[in-house]
């Protein structure tokens, strides 16, 4: 059995082994193996290629850009996604514009341990994918499975553009698979995580599992809910979404991020524009609440969508 977290470690081990241009840079990623142990033993296995950085997110990203210009393929670990706000400028203004401005690609991977866990509070829980997706020049991955954590991270390192790799902390230990995958879907393709015909849930990352649980629950009531795991949110696989809505006629987009203008808004906007006629009912959204992510588990459990609240919203949708 291998966990989502171990898959991330294995992907990095493989990238380091296969490609001498790869190195890892981040706070405590070296001998310590990272705050979450995502780089456990890698410094020992790949001497000199897994380096502890100072607490300097802006310079961490900036240095990765310079190294990429010189032909390297850096992996930057943010200790928590939330701290990437400090490196925000280098990400959106430097990494994201480099190729477009200079014709020199910027193959860097920035790993963001993302999303909420109980007791983590406002500054160790954020889902920042929509911010990065808004900026041209970035690819934003949001793997929901152990297999994707592995193969998408390898893809991220291989891609010639900056990739924001949003790995979900809640899935780190909760999610297990039998083995690492030997093949993978192409980047940019969404996956039908569960087939259905009565309604479509489009989601990604940890919310895939809450949505699958919702589908499970509603199956007991006779409903067949299709669940689409976007895998990457930019590019966003509109075709797969539209094809699903064409089958089901009903759409619920679910995300763990803040409600204003995130991934779910983009999904609804695309389906409304390009698949209006496919809809048998108004599409719906479910996001976290419009406050910071709360610390206390009682509040946190209500702030983010769960199988229960997704099911409730889905029942509303099915009633329409």
């Amino acid at each position: 059995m291998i966990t989502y977290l171990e898959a991330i470690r294995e992907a990095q081990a493989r990238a380091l082994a296969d490609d001498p241009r790869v190195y890892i840079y981040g706070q405590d990623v070296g001998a310590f193996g990272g705050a979450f142990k995502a780089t456990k033993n890698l410094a020992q296995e790949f001497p000199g290629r897994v380096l502890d950085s100072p607490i300097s997110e802006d310079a961490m990203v900036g240095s990765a850009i310079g190294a990429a210009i010189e032909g390297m393929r850096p992996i930057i670990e943010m200790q928590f996604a939330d701290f990437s706000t400090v490196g925000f400028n280098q990400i959106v203004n430097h990494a994201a514009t480099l190729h477009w401005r200079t014709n020199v690609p910027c193959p860097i991977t920035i790993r963001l341990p993302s999303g909420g866990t109980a007791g983590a509070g406002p500054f160790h829980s954020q889902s920042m994918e929509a911010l990065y997706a808004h900026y041209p020049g970035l690819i934003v991955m949001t793997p929901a499975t152990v297999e994707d954590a592995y193969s998408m991270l390898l893809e991220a390192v291989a891609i010639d553009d900056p990739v924001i790799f949003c790995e979900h902390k809640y899935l780190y230990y909760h999610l297990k698979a039998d083995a690492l995958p030997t093949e993978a879907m192409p980047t940019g393709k969404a996956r039908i995580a569960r087939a259905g015909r009565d309604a479509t849930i489009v989601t990604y990352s940890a919310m895939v599992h809450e949505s699958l649980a919702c589908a499970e629950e509603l199956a007991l009531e006779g409903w067949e809910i299709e669940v689409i795991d976007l895998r990457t949110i930019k590019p966003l696989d509109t075709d797969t979404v539209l094809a699903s809505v064409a089958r089901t006629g009903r759409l619920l987009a679910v995300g763990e991020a803040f409600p204003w203008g995130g991934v779910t808004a983009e999904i609804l906007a695309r389906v409304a524009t390009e698949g209006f006629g496919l809809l048998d009912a108004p599409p719906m959204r479910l996001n976290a609440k419009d406050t910071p992510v709360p610390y206390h588990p009682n509040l946190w459990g209500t702030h983010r969508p769960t199988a229960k609240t997704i099911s409730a919203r889905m029942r509303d949708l099915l009633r329409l």
Partner: protein
Amino acid sequence: MLQTTEVPSPLAEPSAFRQTFFAAYRWMLLARLLEEKIASLYRGGKIIGGVFLGRGQEALSVAVGMALQKGDIFAPLIRDQAGRLAFGESLLDCTRTYMGSRLGPMRGRDGNVHRGRPREGMFAMISHLGAMIPAVVGALLARRFRGVTGTVGATCLGDGATSTGAFHEGLNMAAVEKLPLIVVVANNQYAYSTPNARQFACEDLVDKAVGYGVTGHRLDATDLETCLRVLNKAVANARDGGGPQLVVASLLRLAGHGEHDDAHYIDDRLRESRLGLDCLKVAEQRLLAEGWADESALHGLENNAQRQIDEAVATTLREPAPDPNVEDWCALATRHLSESSHAE
């Protein structure tokens, strides 16, 4: 809080000095025992999330808290339990925040070390290291605008946090404005697992002072008297118009980064060096050696502290957890501008 910025000299004013030292020791002891209690609650599964201790850093922290006066500003960091208590934070503010009580200052919305009462001068840290410095700078600027004089602002951070852009921008801004800011760097040799050698390349962090045009102070923070003297001096300088003060203290964190961490990476030679001394023990030995207290008096102090802590914890444990149904889920102060839940 001391009502004077002068630490009395042990020779010239032995009894006053003893009082100060003794008061500091009591806060340190209370902080140590409080944190031990929090750690044991954590091990017992009563605290969800992280627990971060100031073990070994109490002398420095208490000296900051005691050098400040009512009306000053204090922006503590994760290892400042002792300074918080000395500055006036109640035990309940700590226990309630760690346990997420609805009645605490953070009402379960934020937790553990992320607590404060900004309007009472105790700022509530955000996690992003260095970020509190400019906030204190702005508060001091505000006081200048408002014509308030004689107050200062202090903030603490670790060796690792000196590498942040926020540290640099904040300290530079304070220097330009010549504001009464005291920045206390607890150089405990590591940032999480990262040793000083991977964090900075200057000989001593205090070497940064001249580059900002501010006064630098350095000290061995295992010795309480030194801490009291240096912090009082730095605070007095700032209060007297001397501009920002950069205090760099050497010490060791005698705990993990958080309670989930066994700190195995800390070099044994450091543990065995002077830096590895436990400031609380050192202060205790001084008390005994000077004859300012005997074993039984110390025991009494400990019992007393323990009782206060147990009471605070017991109270907190009985308190209501936040209720999501009562919670108002509104981030704005201007309630009518908050959006009804369009996409939640």
